[in-house]
């Protein structure tokens, strides 16, 4: 049975899209069918990591929300992105699909101005799983708490909350964890990102897990290579042997359980 995984953070800039793209790519590389939907309608961006040129983006999630097309018509097969960097391809039967949000200023403004039918977004999540025969659907959310975020948290089998070692992130994460518990998400895990390599990463993870009473799936160190990559590709494919990639794989293994 397909699993829906939401990747969320209370604040922006935590590395949500990067983490989502890496986890989805690793899972697709293992012969599973993974979809990634960008519900960050106000500030989309995950398509950049998959090398999807917005000029060639004929349809987006916005078109589906406005009733112009079916949700599967907004899905792009980006399995090729698995083989462009690390020489890796999707294993037999696997595939990677991206449902981007529009990057056109007018279309972003229209969503803000006119709103949309939230039922259609909810139906779209389930329809994507069926039509694309997905094993995993990753929802890349808008930071903070809004209607889309609460919806994606509610329907998720697993919620991954990303935080940095930062006092503002700590407070916001406490709020998100409390809401996730109210919405009875079956599985909740934290990912600590952008930790200084000088930190004792294991001790940091243990302390955060104790503080929130929630498992920490991984602690990702800040690395020069990730900064240099600048979202121009998927890190775990470009640097498969890098310690950061090993951490992504460790988190992916936990998502797969």
């Amino acid at each position, binding site marked *: 049975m397909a699993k829906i995984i939401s990747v969320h953070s209370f604040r922006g800039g935590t590395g949500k899209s990067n983490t989502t793209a890496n986890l989805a790519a690793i899972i697709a590389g293992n012969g599973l069918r993974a979809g990634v939907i960008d519900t960050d309608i106000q500030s989309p961006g995950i398509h950049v990591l998959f090398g999807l040129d917005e000029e060639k983006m004929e349809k987006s999630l916005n078109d589906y929300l406005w009733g112009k097309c079916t949700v599967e018509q907004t899905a792009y097969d980006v399995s090729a992105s698995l083989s462009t960097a690390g020489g890796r391809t999707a294993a037999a039967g696997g595939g990677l699909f991206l449902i981007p949000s529009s990057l056109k200023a007018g279309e972003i403004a229209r969503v803000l101005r006119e*709103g*949309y039918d*939230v039922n259609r977004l909810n139906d779209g999540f389930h329809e994507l799983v069926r039509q694309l025969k997905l094993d995993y659907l990753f929802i890349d959310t808008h930071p903070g708490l809004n209607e889309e975020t609460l919806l994606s948290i509610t329907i998720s089998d697993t919620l991954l909350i990303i935080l940095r070692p930062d006092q503002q992130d700590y407070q916001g994460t406490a709020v998100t964890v409390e809401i996730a518990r109210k919405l009875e998400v079956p599985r909740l895990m934290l990912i600590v990102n952008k930790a200084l390599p000088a930190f004792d990463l294991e001790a940091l993870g243990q302390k955060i897990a104790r503080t929130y009473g929630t498992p920490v799936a991984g602690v990702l160190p800040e690395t020069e290579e990730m900064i240099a990559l600048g979202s121009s590709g998927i890190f775990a494919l470009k640097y498969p042997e890098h310690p950061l990639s090993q951490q992504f794989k460790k988190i992916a293994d936990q998502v797969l359980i």
Partner: protein
Amino acid sequence: MGIFDRLGQELDAREKAAGLSMADVLSLPDDSRRLFNWMMRQEEVGLAEVITFLGQDEATVCCTLLALVEGGYVREIHTSGQVRYRVRLAPKRKRDIPLSIWQALDSKIEE
């Protein structure tokens, strides 16, 4: 007072609009919220599943579902002669920004 009496009171107290917003779901009493969370996670549910979930008799559950449908919080889906139920979510609200600001934004985008 039963959970659906309390739910009814909660819903009546809200501004009448088609469907529930996610913020509404979050602020429902625990037992009502649990029902909506479950229904949304299932995508849609049949009468027998609701009876099992609530552990109540068929007549009581039918009354509850009827009240939720009439209240606009759940919609009926008729498939192959069977009735299924889905949570009905309220449309995402428009931003209350003065029209002049939208017009200015439109003209900037068109430029």
